């Protein structure tokens, strides 16, 4: 069991670290999105009724012929600005067949922001990677997640005193301390680690195990489509009749839904076949409950009459899937629970990091004692550890810098924000591989400290939203992100300072102490 835990964890540890870091940031994706587009107005006081008026005015102008309109008012955390989307199915997947915009509520005109993907690409990378076809990334993450699940279960089995050592952390004892801390991070957040890994696999179960669908529906994309149609049926769906008819007043549709659910409970709307006599309006409810998912009401798009309300209970299998996927995404989480999710994600990240470090600490003394020096494989693991555990955070800080500092008119600006991230990450890897081991750790910690702590300063210099203004105006998205960045920077500075002190050549240390420090491999 122990070797399985060790090697399953080590092999995929670096990918998992990346997945956990980007996934954990995803719990604040909407906040990061808003921060990365500082020129957009704050719309959190806008109501759903005002939003649909503006949205319909805009969509009637740009896409009266669309098969579907989608409107998301800025009343929810995940949509800081009024968002509309339209598509024409007959045009297939071509560019002309779809479009989206963020709207000004007063003028119903699109508002332009800098070319950035905000947090969405960061978030997407945690299950599909980057610079590779989506399916390849999904399989890489899938295999790593499977090994993670194995590592978690074997970890519980080989942990000898899981209850007796529940509160145990013995600092300043080298390898013992690393193991204790690895255990603390793993055990106190164990339910989260299990849930997030298992439900992560479940997200792409049909991708990873295509034969399950193929067994019933046949091989090929038609079978998959039929499976999805049956597994996720659309209520009261109607084909367009081809007869024009005026669209119902969506304001009263929203008012009806809010009358049923409560104010600010409408999450988004879809209008199918607007302008047709068979138009349908689907209204989706805000998700603020871990068990109730996908509440919706379907209205006739011409008369505005309610056609269907949620009544039917989905199957047991579907419910289990929905709840687990809902737990993974945490869309229902309010501020308190969102921060707890974030903390749990960080603990998962720390669990992986301490596991990786533990592998090297355990072997370092023996490797350093070799006449020929540490083996190549050991040096590779050391470099990958440094370059990942303190390299990736530095690269993420660079991503936030790039969002503010790349010229606004730059071609493919959004792509370049990510290129900057990966270029900096590659440089930190090279740095980690070429510097003496502990110098590499210390210097990259300083780099992280500088990179994160300077984020509020860059906002002062490049936007009209300095931290002081965000705080005085009570704009807690901007203030929260920048204060968090500052805190992360200070934590890295503390770590760097600690490492500096610990590894400074000190004349007062006796010879035995030096030998002991060397033997313990310096961490």
């Amino acid at each position, binding site marked *: 069991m122990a070797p399985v835990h060790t090697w399953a964890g080590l092999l995929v540890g670096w990918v998992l670290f990346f997945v956990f870091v980007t996934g954990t940031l995803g719990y604040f994706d909407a906040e990061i999105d808003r921060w990365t587009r500082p020129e957009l107005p704050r719309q959190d006081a806008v109501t759903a009724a005002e939003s649909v008026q503006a949205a319909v005015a805009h969509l009637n102008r740009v896409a009266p012929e669309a098969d579907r309109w989608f409107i998301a008012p800025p009343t929810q955390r995940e949509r800081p600005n009024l968002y509309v989307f339209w598509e024409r199915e007959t045009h297939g997947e071509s560019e002309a067949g779809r479009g989206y915009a963020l709207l000004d509520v007063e003028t119903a005109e699109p508002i332009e922001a800098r070319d950035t993907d905000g947090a969405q690409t960061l978030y997407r990378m945690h299950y599909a990677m980057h610079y590779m076809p989506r399916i390849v990334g999904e399989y890489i993450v899938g295999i790593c997640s499977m090994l993670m699940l194995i590592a978690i279960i074997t970890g519980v089995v080989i942990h000898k005193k899981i209850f*007796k050592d*529940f*509160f*145990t*952390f*013995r*600092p300043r004892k080298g390898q013992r301390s690393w193991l204790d801390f690895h255990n*603390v*991070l793993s055990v*106190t*957040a164990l*339910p*989260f680690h299990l849930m997030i890994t298992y439900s992560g696999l479940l997200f792409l179960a049909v991708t990873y195990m295509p034969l399950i669908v193929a067994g019933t529906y046949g091989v090929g994309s038609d079978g998959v489509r039929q499976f999805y149609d049956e597994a996720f049926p659309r209520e009261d769906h109607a084909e367009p009749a081809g007869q024009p008819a005026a669209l119902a007043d969506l304001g009263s549709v929203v008012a009806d839904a809010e009358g049923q659910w409560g104010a600010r409970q409408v999450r988004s709307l879809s209008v199918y076949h607007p302008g047709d006599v068979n138009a349908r309006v689907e209204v989706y409810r805000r998700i*603020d*409950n*871990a*068990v*109730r998912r996908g509440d919706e009401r379907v209205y006739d798009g011409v008369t505005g009459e309610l056609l269907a309300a949620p009544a039917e209970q989905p199957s047991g299998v579907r419910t289990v899937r929905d709840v687990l996927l809902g*737990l993974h995404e945490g869309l*229902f*989480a309010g501020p*308190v*629970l969102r921060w*707890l*999710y974030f*903390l*749990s994600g960080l*603990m998962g990240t720390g669990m992986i990091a301490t596991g990786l470090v533990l592998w090297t600490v355990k072997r370092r003394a023996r490797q350093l004692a070799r006449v020929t020096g540490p083996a190549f494989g050991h040096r590779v693991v050391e470099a990958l550890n440094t370059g990942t555990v303190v390299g990736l955070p530095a690269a993420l800080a660079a991503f936030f810098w790039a969002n503010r500092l790349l010229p606004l008119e730059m071609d493919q600006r959004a792509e370049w924000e990510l290129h900057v991230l990966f270029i900096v990450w590659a440089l930190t890897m090279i740095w980690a591989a070429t510097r003496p081991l502990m110098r590499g750790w210390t210097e990259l910690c300083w780099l992280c400290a500088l990179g994160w702590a300077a984020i509020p300063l860059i906002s002062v210099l490049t936007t009209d939203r300095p931290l002081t203004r965000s705080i005085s105006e009570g704009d807690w998205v901007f203030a929260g992100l920048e204060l968090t960045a500052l805190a992360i920077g200070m934590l890295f500075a503390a770590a760097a300072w600690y490492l500096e002190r610990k590894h400074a050549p000190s004349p007062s240390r006796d010879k035995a102490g030096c030998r002991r420090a060397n033997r313990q491999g310096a961490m």
Partner: protein
Amino acid sequence: MLLALALTYSGFTALSLAMNRHYKQVFATRPSPLQRVVFKASGWALLVVAAWRCLVVFGAANGPIVFLGLISAAGLSLIVLLSYRPGWALGLAVAVPLIGVWV
């Protein structure tokens, strides 16, 4: 919410004090058998009350998830304090629920 976090933290503190190793960290002596029983019972009782608070404040669906999150947060902070500032760990366990009740 603060009360639920405080109760979880205090519950864990009591449970840790029921163990020789952690009692020694705080008081530098060993607990008597009676003390151990009292700490253990009150620890579990506090955790039950904390879980109940989560259910009341956050509802039957979200409450258990919040409670699991609080376990991570309270557990981690207690363990760090016990190792570096055992006196504070104990002081907080008494002070935070009082603040929680007061707020």
